[in-house]
């Protein structure tokens, strides 16, 4: 991406820019330290994507177009490496994660796996978690707070019950809203015909459609073998995961009323008999170690939000405040909005089903926000033409 020198910045502005640049550098360092602690390499896909986005967001939102011509992060990487090696400086990062999903899909079990101890009760025959509760702990020195919620009921006629549960959750998180939502489902249970749509609609109704912009889909029982293909042979694990993820993502899109939404998917396996690697981490059939990946995705969202806050503070006198949204656009939304080169097309009513007022509100608010924030988006070629 070629950068150009625009107007000469005044001295005051340049000092602000330096500060912002410095703060963003520290955020990058923090992120790379997190990556290091999770045992992942800086050239992993998700890590590279986040760093790239940090760079892009900085270039677009800040006025630093003339000053930062490079997206190389070697100084940040070196600094991160050094701080970790020294072991002196504590990592100033904490994350609050909320889990939601049907009953019996493995929410509490996954939280136990994350902390590597049985902090929450699980039950194979009836609901284990009866009330909203939060669990606090550290993973590799990173402070983590997870909010466990009672399981929701998938049946269409039980949505009243779900609303009660979700209202109690909403009250609980009022004081400290979570940074990221993990929506759970099972990899090995196909909910055909969008059977979970009533449930997802209820979640959208109580929390608002914006909750889905900050959500990661988690599929548990990920060590399940794929079903036999119609020919009788075993189908591929990756195809299995892709098809299952697609159904969940599509249902969320329908419930949220946002056809551009692409929620990232993470896999999880909590069974004690699951294969482990030499370091003791549980390994999936595709060789992936799931815990660091899940934590990385969760932290990435918070990191991006922090970066946006830093940039917003600098921008606020010039640009209008977005009262409707209290959180910055996170990972999935940044990706989809960066690739969009046209204003959002209004899709026909049929695709949203009978969700009238809710969808209209969403469309209006997101449209107006998009236009003002991403006015200065450089024209990208849409991928299909390229």
């Amino acid at each position: 991406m070629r950068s150009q020198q625009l107007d000469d910045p005044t001295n005051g502005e340049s000092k602000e820019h330096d500060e912002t640049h410095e703060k963003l550098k520290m955020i990058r360092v923090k992120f790379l330290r997190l990556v290091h602690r999770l045992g992942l390499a800086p050239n992993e896909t998700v890590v590279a994507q986040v760093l790239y986005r940090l760079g892009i967001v900085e270039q677009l939102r800040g006025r630093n177009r003339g000053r930062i011509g490079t997206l190389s992060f070697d100084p940040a990487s070196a600094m991160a490496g050094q701080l970790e090696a020294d072991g002196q400086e504590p990592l100033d990062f904490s994350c609050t994660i909320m889990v939601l999903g049907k009953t019996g899909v493995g929410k509490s079990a996954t939280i136990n796996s994350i902390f590597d101890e049985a902090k929450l009760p699980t039950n194979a025959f009836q609901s284990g978690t009866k009330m909203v509760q939060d669990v606090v702990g550290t993973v590799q020195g990173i402070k983590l707070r997870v909010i466990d919620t009672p399981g929701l009921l998938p049946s269409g006629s039980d949505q009243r019950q779900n609303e009660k549960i979700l209202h109690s959750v909403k009250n609980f998180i009022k004081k400290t809203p979570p940074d990221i939502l993990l929506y759970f489902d099972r990899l090995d249970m196909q909910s055909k015909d969008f059977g979970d749509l009533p449930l997802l609609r209820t979640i959208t109704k109580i929390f608002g459609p914006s909750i889905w912009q900050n959500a990661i889909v988690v599929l548990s029982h990920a060590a399940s073998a794929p079903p036999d293909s119609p020919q009788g042979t075993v189908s591929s694990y990756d195809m299995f995961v892709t098809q299952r993820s697609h159904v969940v993502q599509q249902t969320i899109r329908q419930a949220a009323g946002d056809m551009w939404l692409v929620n990232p998917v993470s896999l999880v396996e909590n069974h004690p008999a699951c294969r482990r690697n030499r370091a003791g981490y549980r390994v999936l059939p595709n060789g992936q170690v799931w815990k660091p990946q899940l934590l990385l995705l969760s932290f990435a969202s918070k990191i991006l939000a922090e970066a946006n806050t830093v940039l917003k503070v600098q921008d606020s006198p010039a640009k209008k405040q977005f009262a409707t949204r209290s959180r910055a656009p996170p990972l999935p939304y940044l990706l989809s909005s960066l690739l969009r080169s046209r204003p959002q097309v209004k899709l026909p009513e049929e695709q949203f089903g009978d969700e009238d007022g809710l969808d209209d509100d969403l469309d209006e608010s997101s449209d107006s926000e998009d236009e003002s924030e991403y006015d200065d988006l450089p024209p990208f070629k849409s991928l299909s033409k390229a």
Partner: protein
Amino acid sequence: MGSILRDWQGFHQFPAATQSKLVELFAKLKEEGVNKMTILVMGKGGVGKSSTVNSLLGERAVNVSSFQSEGFRPVMVSRDRAGFTLNIIDTPGLVEGGYVNYQALELIKRFLLNKTITVLLYVDRLDAYRVDDLDKQIISAITDTFGKEIWNKSLLVLTHAQLCPPDDLSYDVFCARRSEAVLKTMRMGAQIRKRDFEVVHNDVKCTSISMDSAIPVGLVENSGRCNKNENDEKILPNGDAWIPSMVKEIVGVATNGKKSLLVDEKLVNGSESNDRGKIFIPLILGVQWLLVKWIQREIKKDIVKGGKYF
């Protein structure tokens, strides 16, 4: 909507040990004078109905849809062997979009017109950890459509039976508790008390699951990964060869002395339970008519009497 009667070729691909057991069981049926059996398979979508049908027949007789929604119509597969006719009816899933699919039930009911159901297989997954109101509604819907008597001739089938139980439970304990949870919901949905329908089995031991439940339970594993014993028969984690066991349960239900369910016109077009109060209707009408007449007389009397309040 019948199907062509074909030779049961799939029978010969079963391992020899399974074949001999099945031959024994069919001989028993013949002794009782039964030379035709119609099995109806019902349940939610995605639980393994079509796969179970294919496993029992030993051939890919019906299509299995892993990811898309199932076919919309019931399908009957007929196979003939040594003078014995086996009909198996595979049906669409009874749940759609989080609600019971009454339309599918109607379709199934009309498909079954003038057929006699010997055994109903109600299918669910062993590896599901919850039973909810939707399951109860499905059972209620089936009961409303076919009548309570259908549960006299039914069998609970739990698929995905090759599993490693969670929470350090043993396989037998997990199966027992899961079956009991599903059976309890079934009893509630059909409004049957536990002691109402006692089924007498020919042997005492049906499976190692629940001995005192009215509806027997069969475990099934349809995937190609199913473990096999030294006779090359597909076995469950408890060592049981499940195909012969399942057929034994089915034969047990078929010969349990209760009447098979004939789906006749009356059943298809409406239930007969409304007849009970019909004789009272003319009586109540008569009483109402008398009451109205009396009120009219009283009003007339009052008009003649009064006039002071105007």
